[in-house]
């Protein structure tokens, strides 16, 4: 049906009364996501929009609501703490939207969350959406449509662009996952590819990468070695100069490593169809699924 989230997702919103948190909570509720609670220290006992109960701590919220997923909109200096609090409260799936989390914080958050057996998506990611079922994060619902293609991406608006093109071409999605553009994050390409491979409803996968690191290269090898479903991909940053951080903290070419050319080559060598332009993803998909 989808990966990571579906109709049974019971969502908690950390930072529900903040500017971003409240805006997107409304959007998620509108989309049909089951938002079962929010957390804002000091506002425990109040209700968000007269409906969603607010708690002081995640532990309390989990106990009272049975939430199985949380999405984090707290400011960067508190994001690491929020992720750790969620993991410590035993929430199995943690989505952190916050951009600007210090990378040294993430070196500590990563093992902490892992030790407690939770899955983390992000930080600095748009979240994910299983069209028609549940939306967690900030991906605009109206550009998506239910279908049988999975999408995983390091980017935000570029993802929207591609999904929009797919929807216009009547190619629907099982789940669209934005893993985020930070150098250290939780769920990576391979985690998503693996989940899509196992998801019966997904027939093909789109993978949108960018410069920096070697995740796409490893993901490409995973496709060849472990996947039966077709995968097509796009890499942003062919014109990016080395040594400069292209917006995303992780989008940086260090020395000669992590270039778009290197990644596109890895795609080709491992049977991942390479889109030259974002729009080409649609044609590649159509051919792959024929």
């Amino acid at each position, binding site marked *: 049906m989808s990966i990571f989230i579906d109709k049974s997702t019971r969502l908690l919103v950390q930072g529900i009364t903040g500017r971003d948190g409240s805006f997107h909570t409304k959007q998620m509720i509108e989309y049909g996501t089951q938002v079962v609670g929010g957390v804002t220290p000091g506002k425990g006992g109040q209700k968000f929009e007269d409906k969603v109960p607010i708690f002081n701590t995640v532990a309390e919220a989990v106990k009272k609501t049975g939430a199985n997923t949380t999405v984090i909109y707290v400011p960067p200096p508190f994001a690491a703490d929020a992720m750790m609090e969620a993991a410590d409260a035993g929430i199995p799936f943690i989505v952190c939207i916050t951009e600007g989390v210090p990378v040294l914080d993430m070196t500590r958050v990563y093992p902490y969350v892992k030790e407690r057996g939770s899955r983390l998506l992000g930080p600095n990611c748009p979240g994910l959406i299983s069209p028609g079922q549940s939306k967690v994060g900030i991906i605009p619902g109206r550009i998506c449509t239910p279908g049988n293609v999975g999408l995983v991406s390091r980017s935000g*608006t570029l993802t929207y662009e591609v999904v929009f093109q797919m929807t216009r071409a009547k190619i629907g999605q099982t789940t669209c996952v934005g893993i985020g553009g930070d150098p250290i994050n939780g769920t990576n390409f391979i985690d998503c590819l693996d989940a899509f491979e196992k998801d019966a409803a997904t027939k093909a996968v789109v993978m949108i990468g960018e410069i*920096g690191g070697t995740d796409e290269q490893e993901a490409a090898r995973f496709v060849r070695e472990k996947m039966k479903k077709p995968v097509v991909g796009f890499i942003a940053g062919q014109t990016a100069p080395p040594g400069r951080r292209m917006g995303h903290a992780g989008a940086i070419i260090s020395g000669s490593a992590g270039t778009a050319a290197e990644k596109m080559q890895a795609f080709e060598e491992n049977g991942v169809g390479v889109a030259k332009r974002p729009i080409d993803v649609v044609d590649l998909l159509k051919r792959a699924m024929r």
Partner: protein
Amino acid sequence: MNIHEYQAKDIFRKYGIPIPPGEVATTPDEAQAIARKFGTTVVIKAQVHAGGRGKAGGVKLAKTPEEARNVAAQILKLVIKGLPVQKVLVTPAADIASEAYVGIIVDRASKRSVFMASPAGGIDIEEVAAKTPDKILRHAVDPRYGLQMFEAMQLAFFLYSDIKQVRAAAKILQQLYKAFSENGGSLAEINPLVTTPAGEIAALDAKMVIDDNELDRRPDIAALRDESAEEESEVEARKANLTFIKLDGNVGCVVNGAGLAMATMDLVKYYGGEPANFLDIGGSSNPEKVVAALRIITSDKNVKAILFNIFGGITRTDDVANGIVTAIKQNPLKVPLVIRLTGTNEEIALEILKKSGLSAMTDMDEAVKKAVALATGGKAK
């Protein structure tokens, strides 16, 4: 954020890492006075955010105060990789018996801070990595425990065999780790770490890069930023909360989102143009940001056409439209403008643009093609 060698040295010194004295001069006279004070041969080093200073003539010896004056005058006139040298560090020349490299970076693969140590110091570590990879020892630090003494000793034994030097180097490595992690570093490097003929160990050079995301909670570190040492347009962009990187092309790009911005640049190239910049206006696009973005882009004389590519999600396209209209009123454009808008409040945005005699497209490919054609004075490929 890059900081200067002398600033990194100040930080390392605070952590007890042995560093020879040194003072900063901004004029040849100051350099002369400092050299006189030291009363010995000095090294004069350009303080500039660029590698390869030595090759560019930015590091020189001076035997007398007068020579120091002349050398400083030369170096202060240099422009290294586009950045003018505004400051020099004057430091006594040291006798060197051996040169090693030690550094630490955040490594995305292991998701940890990783030390590198090499007995082949004094040269670029990437060169060592490429040519003699067995001369580098890497060690990922478990962030939950920090760098243990035994780990520091293992690295130090790779550099030295004399136990006193091993212990001294191990202590330096532990302190370097502290300096790195307590100040929000994404890189900290000593190259070279030298031994003197007497066997003492000292850090002759120091480099540190700070994670931009750490600056909000570290005002003392943020205060180290030297805006005079940065690209003017990038300073302005940062103040407007834009992410901007200047490039050499002719199509100015204004995009929301880093991935889409890169993809837009790539598409410009695909259709035969050259992007003049990377510019991400971010998610919450208030009109002022758009105004600042246009001001920065239009100040680049190479820009022959400007392309907006906005996919409205959180970004409200009407905000962007308002920003464009305001900016053009303030400063009429001298180059053609192509706008691509779609998503949140698209209809309102189109109405706003229309009222000011502007129009917008909805297809990214078409918009890029048009902008390239306008910039190159011909047709897109």
